[in-house]
């Protein structure tokens, strides 16, 4: 663990140093990299704080039984449906889906539903799908959703069942 930390700090400071030097020396490539970094970081900052506040509120207000009933082992096919609907309204990239998935899992959602949620949040976020259709056509988006969504649900169920037998659990990063 200590080594991991040391490597992390070395990478972060090396990167920061590289960017600072690039600005001082007027190195184009480094400046471009730093612009990429800030663009993407700002884009994430618009969403991430809200997402984590909502996760916090979810953790204190939503009862475990509620999650278990709708997304847990006994939820059947409805659990998958809820996962897709929830994913459809998720904003931001898939990196937001992981902390949410962890939260749902720790409250009793089953693995198949969790993987469906993660997969679906990548492919069928509603605002994104509308945006996609406006550039590539409604047919393109429809074919994509009709093929990918069933495959995501089926593979998530298989992977979830398999890992449940192996007593697999999602972990909270330390």
């Amino acid at each position, binding site marked *: 663990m200590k080594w991991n930390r040391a490597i992390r700090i070395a990478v972060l400071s090396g990167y920061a140093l590289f960017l600072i030097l690039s600005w001082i020396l007027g190195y184009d490539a480094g400046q471009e990299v730093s612009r990429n*970094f800030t663009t993407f*970081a700002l884009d994430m900052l618009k969403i991430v704080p*809200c997402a984590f506040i909502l996760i916090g509120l979810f*953790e204190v207000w939503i009862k475990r039984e509620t999650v278990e009933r709708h997304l847990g082992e006994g939820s059947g096919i409805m659990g998958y449906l809820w996962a897709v609907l929830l994913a459809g309204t998720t904003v931001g990239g898939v990196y937001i889906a992981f902390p949410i998935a962890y939260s749902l899992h720790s409250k009793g959602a089953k693995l198949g539903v969790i993987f469906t949620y993660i997969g679906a949040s990548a*492919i069928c976020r509603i605002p994104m799908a509308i*945006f996609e259709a406006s550039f*590539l056509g409604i047919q393109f988006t429809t074919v994509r959703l009709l093929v990918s969504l069933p495959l995501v649900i089926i593979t998530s169920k298989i992977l979830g069942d398999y890992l449940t037998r192996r007593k697999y659990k999602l972990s909270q*990063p330390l």
Partner: protein
Amino acid sequence: MYILYILTGLALAISIIASRQKTAGALRIAAKRFVSILPAFLIMLILVSIVLFLITDEVIIRYLGADAKYLAVLSAAGLGSIILMPGFIAFPLAGVLLEKGVLYMVLSAFTTTLMMVGVLTYPVEKAYLGTGVTIIRNSISFVIALAVALMTGVFFGEIF
């Protein structure tokens, strides 16, 4: 985007009215969880900033516009897996490529892997799912993306 802010603000306000203590607890959880994943987010951002520099729009246009269409599908899927791009950049780019005559199935391979397969989100995903499951999940997603591209090709009559 504004809906998210309004929703969060509303939820927070209701929560404070209902119980100040619980709301404070919620914010503590939010801060703790955010801080714990922050290093992985930073590593991801560093990777994104470098990869987006190396793989420019010109590179994408060159590979996706290749004459050998199945090679184009595969390189599109490869590029889409490696790159991480917000939709507001990716779809306009795909729209431009479509007008340039790039096939639907190539664009499908690109955008679907872009969404589903995350090489650059690996640090974040690994933190929650572990290394093994992250690799399995992304491999499955890659195969699904190829299936989507193939079916898109069938639908738009681009297979032969």
